[in-house]
């Protein structure tokens, strides 16, 4: 199951240093320092873990960790 901790771990794999306890689920990825290419990376990894593909039309709806968790729940 996808967790907030796992998402933060994947984001940090892009070269960021977020603390999963201090990182708010509601803050936008952009505000966390996740740029568009980082986000491609994050989604690609989550798709691989969950086996669920995100259609291009849904990507713009996923702006923070909370929305990601809900989408993949």
């Amino acid at each position: 199951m996808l967790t907030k901790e796992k998402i933060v771990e994947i984001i940090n794999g892009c070269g960021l240093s977020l603390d999963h306890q201090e990182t708010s689920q509601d803050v936008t990825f952009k505000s966390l320092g996740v740029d568009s290419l980082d986000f491609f990376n994050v989604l690609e990894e989550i798709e691989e873990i969950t086996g669920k593909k995100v259609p291009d039309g849904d990507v713009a709806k996923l702006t923070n960790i909370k929305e990601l968790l809900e989408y993949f729940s």
Partner: protein
Amino acid sequence: MIGIKAIASYLPNRVIDNIAQAKMFGESEEFIKNKIGAVRLPRKDDDQETSDIATLAVQALFKKCQNLKKSNVDAIVVVTQNPDGEGLPHTAAILQDKLGLPVTVAAFDVSLGCSGYVYGLFLLKGFLEASGLENGILVTADPYSKIVDSNDRLTSLLFGDASTATWLSKTPVWSLDAVLYGTDGSGSEYLKVDEGRLQMNGRQIFNFAAHNVAPHIKKLLESESLSPEDIDLFCLHQGSAAILDAISKHFGNLTNRFVKEMKNTGNTVSSSIPLILENRGFDGKLNRILISGFGVGLSMASAIIVRNIQGERLC
């Protein structure tokens, strides 16, 4: 045994400051340096045709290799999807004339993008060997400035113009070894020209490369009973810094063997691999290089090239 004898290139002097360009799109200098990887993008002059930049690369090859005579060129192949005019006639024929090559030369274009150099090497090698010919020149010249919309953030930050010329001969410095191809046309819509304008689905192109290239390379290595450690240099198509990072992370502590060399060129499509080989492949330090091109199609080609010490002495 036909292989790579020498490589030369042409980079236009006119350049776009990519950091300044990025600011117009609201992107940071850090994003350009770390994710795109190119701070300068060469641009051909507006009145330069594809055959013009191809001519300059081949002329550089003749200048570099005094023992390559025009009269000895048996075949010339141009890898491009942005040919002269509207593609008819083929650019290779125009190039034959501009270079003053013999009328006996075989000349044709190959319509491939970022995988085109790897395909082109094996295609020309096979063509020369099947025809009993000795010397061929593989040209890459695919100026995306012809089709990039300068208002499109996705593509205008990525692509640079360049051309290269690779001499294939019977006394190569680099022998062509194993090769592996791949095509997934279901993704052909993700990178295409529509009404003269390049359109790219950045996420899908990124996913294609991030998901498929590393397994493709590993499959090729396994087929040759090689491990990644046996490769001195991984010379991949320079799509973007982020794509290269996404691929190289699958190779553990060998990431430093993956070339990231696009700072002054950007993504030059089929020219990116030969540009690197020209810079790194002829100082005698490397014995086995893996080359891999991937992109429009969606298409992939990976190959192993092996140093031929005898060929170096004859160059």
